[in-house]
């Protein structure tokens, strides 16, 4: 054998050995999740980015967590009681819960986190604007006093997405409004933060001192058992590569797969399809502050009357399994499902739309529709609707920008008449962005103002549901937003994985067969 050939043989053997060792390392307990992209900072209290929430959910925990029916159940909380007509909330914490830095969770940590969330948290103001005090009234007891009762308080603190995750007191106080730095990613979750390599992965590892709840696991609630030693969240922006990666065994799980692959993947034995149990829905926001649609409800109804939502859903999401032309803001089977006003959801009557527009005084002025191409579904829906509106004589001028530009422009009321976005599943109407008067769109008519107070201040579920029915009817009358329809996202996983979470990617309790 020549020396060159010997060298080549040794190199091949070395590569084969490395490949074998790598394969063994994978088998030793690292779950590899192909995510849609690089996350923003994992300070999930500040951001609503889903890609950060998926990772953050493993590291940080909330006082309550949603079960598979999206009912809040205690997580770090042990019990609670409400006094003073709903204006005082006292939460008792579980004892013996440890942070990843070894310190025990106490009410002081919760109080500091709650104060920061109220000031800077993405969803903090929904609850904390009415807070008069937050106090640790015992080592394991926190007392929140409100100026008015809030019937949705438990739901508002039951998710990590822009939510009240509990940080150690010193970290919460030191961080202020700046995103917490990676070295301070200290939570109480079943996995602890290890490393973040830009564009390579975020790695978390099993927290050996994690103390799971004793209840059976259900959605995000109940016992959380870390079966894998490590989880790597790997940004893989191309959907085709995510799918091929699971098929090739390079990834165990891949998120957010496109609708056009659904039929083929459903029959593919090398993957298992995991469809979300909670739909997202597209929203077209009307500008209630400025412009042609400001308070012209008849013109808004004319626009909605012209539309066939099924057509847009078919173009945007593909197979029928992945969408539902549902007019109720909340899907069937949930406590908030309502048929109030849904006749106006998708009439697809261009003639009537034309008449309504004429009655509304519309003379063909271009309606500026702000949409981003970063989300293909947004663009598809906008394109279909623009065509349908043209058939009804309504002139839409699409303004296509990237997502970062849209986020800025939509805050400038003079720039647009309609903008396109989508909304994740919400277990309570208070969490819907368009109910919030300060969210771009700025729906704050006297009618919704009154109903909003009624919805928030009541703790009685039946009364709140009756109020929600009235709000949904008002949505179809004043059309602050148009719901496109429900869309079910789906992921793919290795067939070997069991125990996948019905609420979305959460990998505690997940193991291999």
């Amino acid at each position: 054998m020549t020396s060159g050939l010997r060298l080549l043989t040794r190199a091949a053997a070395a590569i084969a050995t490395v490949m074998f060792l790598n394969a063994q390392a994978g088998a030793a307990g690292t779950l590899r999740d192909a995510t849609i992209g690089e996350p923003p900072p994992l300070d999930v209290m500040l951001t609503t980015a889903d890609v950060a929430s998926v990772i953050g959910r493993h590291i940080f925990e909330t006082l309550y967590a949603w079960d598979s029916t999206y009912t809040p159940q205690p997580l770090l909380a042990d019990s609670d009681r409400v006094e003073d007509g709903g204006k005082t909330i006292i939460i008792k914490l579980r004892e013996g819960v440890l942070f990843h830095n070894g310190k025990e969770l106490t009410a002081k940590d919760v109080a500091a986190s709650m104060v920061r969330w109220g000031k800077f948290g993405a969803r903090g103001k929904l609850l904390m604007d009415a807070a008069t005090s937050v106090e640790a009234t015992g080592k394991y007891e926190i007392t929140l006093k409100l100026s008015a009762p809030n019937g949705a308080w438990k739901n508002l603190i039951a998710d990590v997405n822009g939510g009240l995750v509990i940080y150690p007191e010193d970290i919460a106080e030191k961080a202020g409004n700046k995103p917490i730095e990676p070295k301070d990613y200290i939570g109480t979750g079943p996995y602890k933060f290890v490393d973040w390599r830009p564009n390579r992965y975020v790695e978390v590892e099993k927290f050996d001192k994690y103390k799971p709840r004793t209840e059976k696991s259900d959605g995000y609630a109940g016992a959380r058992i870390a079966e894998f030693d490590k989880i790597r969240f790997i940004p893989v922006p191309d959907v085709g590569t995510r799918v091929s990666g699971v098929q090739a065994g390079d990834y165990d799980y891949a998120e957010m797969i496109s609708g056009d692959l659904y039929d083929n993947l459903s029959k593919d034995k090398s993957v298992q399809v995991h469809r979300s149990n909670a739909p997202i829905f597209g929203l077209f926001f009307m500008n209630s502050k400025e412009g042609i649609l400001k308070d012209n409800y008849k013109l808004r109804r004319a626009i909605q009357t012209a539309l066939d939502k099924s057509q847009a859903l078919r173009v945007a999401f593909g197979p029928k399994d992945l969408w539902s032309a549902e007019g109720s803001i909340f899907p069937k089977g949930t406590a908030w499902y309502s048929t109030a006003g849904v006749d106006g959801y998708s009439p697809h009557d261009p003639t009537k739309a034309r008449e309504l527009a004429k009655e509304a005084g519309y003379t063909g002025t271009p309606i500026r529709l702000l949409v981003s191409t970063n989300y293909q579904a947004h663009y598809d829906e906008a394109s279909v609707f623009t065509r349908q509106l043209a058939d009804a004589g309504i002139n839409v001028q699409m303004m296509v920008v990237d997502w970062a530009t849209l986020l800025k422009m939509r805050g400038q009321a003079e720039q647009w008449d309609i903008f396109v976005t989508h909304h994740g599943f919400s277990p309570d109407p208070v969490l819907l962005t368009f109910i919030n008067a300060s969210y771009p769109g700025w729906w704050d008519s006297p009618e919704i103002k009154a109903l909003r107070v009624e919805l928030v201040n009541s703790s009685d579920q039946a009364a709140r549901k009756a109020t929600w029915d009235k709000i949904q009817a008002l949505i179809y009358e004043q059309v602050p937003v148009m719901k496109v329809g429900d869309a079910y996202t789906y992921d793919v996983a290795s067939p070997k994985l069991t125990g996948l979470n019905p609420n979305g990617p959460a990998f505690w309790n997940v193991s291999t067969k």
Partner: protein
Amino acid sequence: MWSYALKRTGTTALTLVAASIVVFAFIHVIPGDPIYVLLGDTATPDQIENLRHELGLDQPIVIQYLQWVGHALSGDLGHSIFFQAPVLSVIADGAETSTLLATITMVWVVLIGIPIGVIAAVRHGSWLDQGLSGAAMLMASVPTFWVGLYLILIFAATLGWLPSSGYPSIFDGGLGNLRYLILPSLTLAAPNAALILRLTRASMLDVSREDYVRAARAKGIRPWQVVRRHILRNALLTVVSAFGFTFAALLSEAVVTETVFALPGIGRLVVQSILRRDYPVIQGIILVIVVIYLLVNLIVDLTYRVLDPRVELQ
């Protein structure tokens, strides 16, 4: 030679200053804002303004530029808004992937482009030449994402010979991790090898018509020696010039390939940073790419003299 090198270095520095102004102005002029992307869609105006102030983005643009240049001169390119890490370390991490990818791609380009280009030129007008030129045109025309996805489908998903995507650093897992770059480098090499192939062929045909080639043949030198010693060596001058551009371009051109193969390279980093308006990272990367371009071209210019002593540098 030395005065030429000094002059070229001076021009390089001026170009760098101009580039830094253009890059900074360009990225701050385009609409959008990192704060909105960072905080998400429920952020209130107060929260947005607070964080903007905290990150120094509310200062006049000239002040921001001067601060950036001041820090850059001392080797600090700032701190990434999204990665929460020094820009230099983010770039260094991406540079490893991009440099290795570009180097391996260049190896493929040379191994495929030059020999086949030589064969096509030597067999000029034959069916072999026609076939090779046609194949080169096809490779240059097919989009890289298509080539990449099919390579993944065949060699990773179906045959399982190579990894489908990603690249763990060789500093983490040794040289064996280079296998992650085989499919991406082949993808990226396809259009560039086709370009070099056609360039080699055309350049060789030009040189083969020169008088000294005819004289060499008349002297009875063996045909392959004429090709190797007289035609190829002179034809390579043009090809080597193209190498400089190709190598530098690969670093920034690899965006699609890096996205398809989920490689943590510079190309993907810059696109992602533009989409998120991570100003310090965009500025830092473009500055580094400009420096690489300028340096590579400087080296190529100086290399002319080594390859052909007749070239006078002025």
